[in-house]
């Protein structure tokens, strides 16, 4: 048990931030002042203006569309000769300012065919995956947290940050802030995925190897690199 109360914590975070400010203030940047053009630019942003006529959208449930976009993995693995015993579906519901992505699992039915690898939905993390891209492109692990049903890891190459979550299929319900953005679909190396691009970050969600994966990374990497990251998912070998 620590002796740190909330006031001490607040004080330390504030002190640390102020220390950074003091260090920068001590540097000689006296020549940096706002130019008249820049002042005008900011002023036009914040100056009171007649309020434009606002478009009133009905509240939360004005659904742009409520789509049960079923990315049936039955279709995904249609090329396989194996009889599919179970289906995993993504359901996407789009609201005014957010979208909800739910992954559901239909329990395997009794068949005479033995289940294939893709029919197996572990209830705990049995195999850890990570993008081979990480090692091939000089990324180093910055952070990792794992429990029985999730693995969250962060990597950086010093400039870009990639984080990935691997979790079991059950009970995955992701709410995404899709205001001024939208959830799109893509097929990456044969795998169906949902992705969005917002605030300089790509977010990608997909199902593979019996697990649910999500990746977020800086868009400075570019979408092609994001595709490489997703398609390079492979088991971690010690």
């Amino acid at each position: 048990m620590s002796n740190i109360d909330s006031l001490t914590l607040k004080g330390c975070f504030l002190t640390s931030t102020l220390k950074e400010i003091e260090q920068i203030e001590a540097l000689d940047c006296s020549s940096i002042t706002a130019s008249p053009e820049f002042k005008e630019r900011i002023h036009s942003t914040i100056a009171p203006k007649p309020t434009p006529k606002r478009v009133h959208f009905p509240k939360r449930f004005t659904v742009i569309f409520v789509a049960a976009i079923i990315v049936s993995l039955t279709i995904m693995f249609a090329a396989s000769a194996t009889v599919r015993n179970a289906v995993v579906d993504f359901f996407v519901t789009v609201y005014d300012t957010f979208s909800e992505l739910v992954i559901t699992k239909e329990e395997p039915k009794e068949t005479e065919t033995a289940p294939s690898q893709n029919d197996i939905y572990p209830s705990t993390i049995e195999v850890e995956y990570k993008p081979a891209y990480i090692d091939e492109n000089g990324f180093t692990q910055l952070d990792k947290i794992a429990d029985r049903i999730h693995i969250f890891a962060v990597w950086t190459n010093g400039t870009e940050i990639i984080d990935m979550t691997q979790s079991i299929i059950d009970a995955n319900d992701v709410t995404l802030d899709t205001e001024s953005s939208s959830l799109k679909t893509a097929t990456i190396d044969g795998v169906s995925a949902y992705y969005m691009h917002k605030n300089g970050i790509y977010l990608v969600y997909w199902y593979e190897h019996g697990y649910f994966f999500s990746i977020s990374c800086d868009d400075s990497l570019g979408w092609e690199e994001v595709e490489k990251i997703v398609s390079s998912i492979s088991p971690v070998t010690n």
Partner: protein
Amino acid sequence: MLLFYLSLIESEDDRASITRIYESYLDWMLKMAFYYLKNESDAEDTVNDVFLNIIRSNTSIPLDDERRTKAYLFICIKNSALKLKRKRNKHRTVNLNELLNISAEYNIEAGLIQNELLKFIDTMPDIYKNVLALKIVFNKSAKEIADVLHLPLKTTESRIQRGTSLLKERFGDIDI
């Protein structure tokens, strides 16, 4: 798009706060942004982005205490500047040891815990430090932090959760 942002400044109080920041801190904000970007044009873009994010997020800005105001604006500027810098310096690399300092072990002795906490926060990666500072010092919610730092909500929540875990791993049960 600008009209959309302007339409979000709904009250006179909010406009007064923004105007006060503009009048009192514009040069200071530019200087902070310039420190990270070393380029006046990029610094101006960053400050402009920060203004737009503040307006759009519609969250209150602490103006009662200059130190707190500066701390709040600084976190916003640093976040935007570093984001832009990552885009500009796509191929630049930095010494990862600086980022990984967080795992360094400290010896905690009675009475020194506050200093150790400060040291720990000083070396914390910015991705965690920025969101935690806004949450802890300014009592901002994950949604407000996501809006003002222009980050996806899910990413913001993960960073808060992980930053909190790091503090708890090191210092035990902290009330955040």
